[in-house]
């Protein structure tokens, strides 16, 4: 059937209609480009991280370290082991080199006297002299020789504007004055991800960071030639002190990689989900475009049928169009995806989330996912219209045909209503029973309902949305409303794409708003003091706990309590703990103690949630394992309800410090004396914290706002990613309008002939666009609020719809309608009256 001649016909048809293909082409292109971009970015990150780990353990055959882990976070230091391990390992046959690794927290101050910001761990360690065991190498200057000399990695040096020869300070958290003698690189890179690494001599570490005894963090070992990692590990195991383990270099890299991969996996899934939203919106746009073009060429299809085309040939013609669009757009999208990945990288960076991603990795996997997805989405979107085209009877060529099927059928209304009831029921049920699965299933079903019920709702919705235009914009307004309502299927198709996009944006806004409200309310509810000293958002940063003591001695200050953070194992689970003097903390924070009392400094307290989960009461024993491997059973002294600041476990500082060096506070809460000037106190505290790396002094409002700062960045990224889906939806509306304008050429000509001005024609098209956009936006917002409510309820969070944000979304939606109409309106208004009427 498809001889060369027929193929030629297909090509001719495609070329003849290339203008109407452009809109679909761009929609698929953007969707595929975005999907490809997210995949490329994920691969790039994975590759970069792999490279990091490969480098980190490249020369290490075996590592001896503490066997206890208390955290799932990658890159966290383990507890220390006995220093005697070094000599014992050195005595094992087959060990070529064994060097002690001594590491701890060390924060370098930049030229400005502030801690150099970095999102990764801030580590000080000994400079390992064996170059193969050391993942860093000196690229400028020299290795440290005296205890007061350090080298730092390039990225940290650049960020702190430090040069070789500069004198600066490392906070351990004590102030250690040092001289910078060298700059290091981590393999090819300026750092190990975002880790800041400061290297002292071993002597320097012992003197300043891990003073006193001969504990080490790890022993790193190189095997003699001919001895395998496994063999050497087996030999080392028997000589290890209790609580230590020996691990091969390969195993180490694999373990670290696995941990990072878990985080990366979530990130990739989230990215791909945004790609999916974009493609979904694109699919709706393409479907609508095809539905319209197929309807518009009903007569042409029928004529082909009259002169002898089979149904299959008509199907082939339309499908070929879809294949061509899919193929061209997908190929372009794959190429565009690389640029898109670079843009995404920039996007994350601009929101303060630097990604570990060097270069761009284009894997076969990306091509194998993105290419078929692009093609299949296009083909599936065009399938329905193509089948409809094939069903056109030859007789249709001889009739003045109605372009599209008229109003919605009864079965559509019935099925749609039933589905809608089930979907809403599922969502509400899921929300009330806090079941995510149920709510999620309801959400997916909502999509189907939108497709089924869209054309049913479109007419009344467009009537309502168009009422103001019809009322105040005169004849163009009335005509705009009538045009929007006359083919509900088309209006619904164009609006649905926007609805999906706006729906997801609204969902995210509601969700984030609720989360933010929950955090802010919690923090605001527990802290009523005036000022805080805040170490910032990096959980691995902090300052000397002496700050709280010194602040407390200021004349303006009534109470001050520091709060630190750490990790332990509770039973067999890793847990975050907050470290404080419970008695002092209880004075500045309203923890809402439900049982027991925080009266003494050695009280161990847990949150009501944790107590409920484990069926604990005051007096219950809680088995805790510290990072150094030692175990201690605490007795619950108090249970508190307000866990937004204090977390689930509140451990007395004395107990924590017995097993961990280098206690850091992340925040100090300050209550002023009655009548004391907040401004004076602010100034006094700022002066006081200068030697401690100048952590930020904030008033209560600024502190509360800072708690949701990360969420704002997250939301910013989400908005930017969803903006693409909205743009695709707009293209869909513009395309639909352009096709409608083309179809109504005669009608528009008639309007011009009877005296409509260009402005009136333009206004008519513009208002039609706005009506469709308003319909889509309103539907999306409604849907987003419903789903957002269900999601927050399912997660047990309070529901907060931020009116301002939602108003902005609505406004953007309406503006979008105007934007989408620019080109079609211009074309419509430029039609000369006569040519329009004479058009075939």
């Amino acid at each position: 059937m498809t001889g060369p001649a027929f193929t030629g016909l297909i090509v001719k048809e495609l070329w003849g209609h290339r203008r109407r293909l452009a809109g679909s082409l761009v929609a698929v292109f953007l969707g595929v480009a975005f999907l490809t971009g997210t995949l490329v970015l994920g691969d790039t990150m994975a590759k970069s991280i792999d490279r990091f780990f490969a480098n980190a353990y490249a020369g290490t055959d075996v590592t001896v370290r503490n066997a206890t882990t208390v955290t799932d976070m990658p890159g966290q230091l383990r507890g220390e082991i006995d220093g005697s391990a070094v000599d014992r390992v050195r005595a094992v046959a087959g060990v070529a080199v064994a060097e002690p690794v001594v590491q701890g927290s060390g924060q370098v101050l930049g030229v400005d006297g502030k801690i150099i910001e970095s999102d990764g761990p801030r580590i000080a360690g000994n400079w390992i002299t064996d170059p193969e065991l050391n993942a860093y190498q000196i690229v400028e200057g020299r290795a440290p020789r005296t205890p007061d000399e350090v080298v730092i990695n390039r990225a940290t040096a650049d960020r702190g504007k430090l040069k070789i020869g500069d004198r600066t300070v490392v906070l351990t958290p004590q102030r250690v004055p040092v001289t910078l003698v060298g700059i290091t690189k981590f393999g090819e890179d300026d750092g190990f991800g975002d880790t800041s690494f400061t290297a002292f001599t071993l002597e320097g570490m012992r003197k300043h960071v891990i003073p006193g005894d001969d504990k080490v963090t790890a022993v790193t070992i190189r095997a003699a030639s001919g001895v395998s990692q496994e063999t050497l590990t087996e030999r080392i195991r028997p000589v290890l002190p209790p609580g230590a383990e020996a691990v091969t270099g390969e195993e180490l890299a694999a373990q670290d990689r696995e941990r990072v991969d878990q985080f990366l996996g979530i990130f990739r899934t989230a990215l791909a989900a945004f790609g999916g939203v974009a493609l979904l919106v694109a699919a709706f746009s393409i479907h609508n475009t095809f539905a319209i073009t197929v309807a518009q060429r009903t007569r042409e299809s029928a004529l082909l049928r009259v002169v002898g085309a089979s149904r299959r040939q008509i199907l082939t013609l339309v499908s070929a169009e879809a294949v061509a669009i899919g193929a061209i757009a997908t190929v372009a999208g794959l190429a565009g995806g690389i640029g898109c990945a670079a843009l995404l990288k920039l996007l994350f960076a601009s929101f303060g989330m630097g990604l570990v991603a060097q270069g761009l990795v284009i894997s076969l996997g990306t091509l194998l996912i993105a290419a078929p997805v692009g093609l299949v989405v296009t083909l599936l979107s065009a399938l329905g219209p193509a089948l409809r085209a094939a069903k056109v009877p030859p007789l249709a060529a001889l009739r003045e045909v109605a372009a599209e099927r008229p109003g919605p059928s009864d079965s559509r209304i019935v099925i749609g209503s039933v589905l809608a009831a089930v979907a809403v029921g599922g969502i509400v049920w899921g929300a009330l029973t806090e079941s995510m699965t149920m709510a999620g299933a309801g959400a997916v079903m909502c999509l189907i309902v939108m497709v089924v019920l869209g054309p049913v709702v479109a007419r009344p919705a467009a009537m309502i949305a168009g009422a103001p235009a019809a009322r105040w914009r005169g004849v163009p307004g009335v005509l705009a409303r009538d045009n929007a309502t006359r083919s509900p299927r088309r209006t619904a198709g164009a609006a649905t794409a926007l609805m999906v996009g706006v729906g997801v944006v609204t969902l995210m806004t509601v969700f984030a708003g609720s989360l933010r409200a929950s955090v802010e309310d919690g923090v605001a509810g527990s802290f009523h003091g005036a000022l805080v000293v805040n170490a910032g958002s990096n959980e691995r940063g902090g300052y000397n706990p002496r700050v709280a003591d010194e602040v407390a001695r200021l004349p303006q200050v009534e109470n001050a309590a520091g709060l630190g953070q750490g990790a332990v194992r509770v039973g067999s689970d890793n847990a975050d703990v907050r470290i404080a003097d419970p008695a002092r903390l209880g004075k500045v924070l309203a923890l809402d103690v439900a049982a027991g009392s925080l009266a003494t400094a050695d009280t161990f307290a847990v949150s009501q949630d944790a107590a409920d989960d484990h069926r604990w009461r005051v007096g219950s024993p809680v088995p805790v394992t510290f990072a150094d491997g030692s175990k201690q059973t605490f007795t619950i002294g108090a249970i508190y309800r307000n866990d937004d600041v204090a977390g689930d476990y509140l451990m007395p500082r004395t107990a924590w410090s017995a097993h961990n060096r280098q206690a850091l506070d992340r925040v100090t809460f300050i209550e002023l004396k009655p009548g004391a000037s907040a401004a004076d106190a602010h100034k006094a505290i700022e002066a006081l914290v200068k030697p401690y790396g100048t952590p930020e002094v904030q008033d209560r409002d600024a502190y509360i706002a800072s708690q949701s700062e990360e969420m704002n960045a997250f939301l910013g990224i989400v908005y930017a990613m969803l903006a693409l889906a909205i743009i695709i939806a707009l293209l869909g509306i513009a395309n639909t309008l352009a096709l409608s304008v083309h179809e109504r050429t005669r009608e528009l000509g008639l309007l011009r002939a009877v005296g409509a001005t260009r402005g009136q024609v333009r206004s008519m098209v513009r208002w039609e666009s706005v009506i469709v956009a308003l319909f889509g936006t309103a539907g999306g917002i409604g849907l987003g609020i419903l789903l957002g409510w269900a999601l927050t309820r399912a997660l047990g969070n309070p529901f907060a719809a931020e009116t301002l944000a939602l108003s902005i979304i609505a406004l953007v939606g309406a503006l979008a309608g105007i934007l989408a109409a620019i080109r079609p309106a211009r074309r419509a208004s430029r039609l000369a009256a006569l040519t329009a009427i004479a058009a075939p």
Partner: protein
Amino acid sequence: MPTTGAATAGGARTAGLAKVYGSGDTAVRALDGVSVEFPRGRFTAIMGPSGAGKSTLMHCVAGLDSATSGQVFVGDEELGALSDRQLTKLRRERIGFVFQAFNLIPTLTARENILLPMTLAGTKPDQEWLGSIVRVLGLGDRLGHRPSELSGGQQQRVALARALATRPQIIFADEPTGNLDSRSGAEVLRLLREAVDELRQTVAMVTHDPVAAAHADAVIFLADGQVVDIMTGPTPARVLDRMGELGGTS
């Protein structure tokens, strides 16, 4: 299916053909027991007032619409027994069409439009036959043009060429001059006449126009779905008179 060549077989006929639209009280009998013949190698016109069933008759004979009862033959083939696929093939190979308007695919050139039935069938055109058609229709210098670049008369000649290209057993022309000025209309009618006289084709034409009908060998008059008269050797005056008696508006 026997492919009896156009040279040996042709024409079409109906026997007791009825077509009813709708059912019950709202049923409309568009054709009511029509038995007519479109003899091979002849030019037959179908006339009648609006709503007489002219177009329905043509659609049924052309296999575009199905009969409610009765039979339709194209050559020896009875259409009622054919599937959609077979009807498609029949239209492609044995029937040609010329319509009042919207005859051509706008994205294709005149030549491509003429070749369309063969393109769809995947068959090779008979170049010699095509050459003679193009010559008779005077399209030689227009073959590379698209429909939008052709006048109405030229478009209709291209449509006629397409209808002739497959050497069909019968060509149906539905108001072929309805959209044309009188000179172009006369030209198309002359060409239809030539197709019958010189190319030995069979033509059935639905028309309102007595002048157009007078180009035919015979005129079938329809009224209310029934054949009321068949006139041979028509002249414009006689056709006009007969139409007047039928109460036709023109």
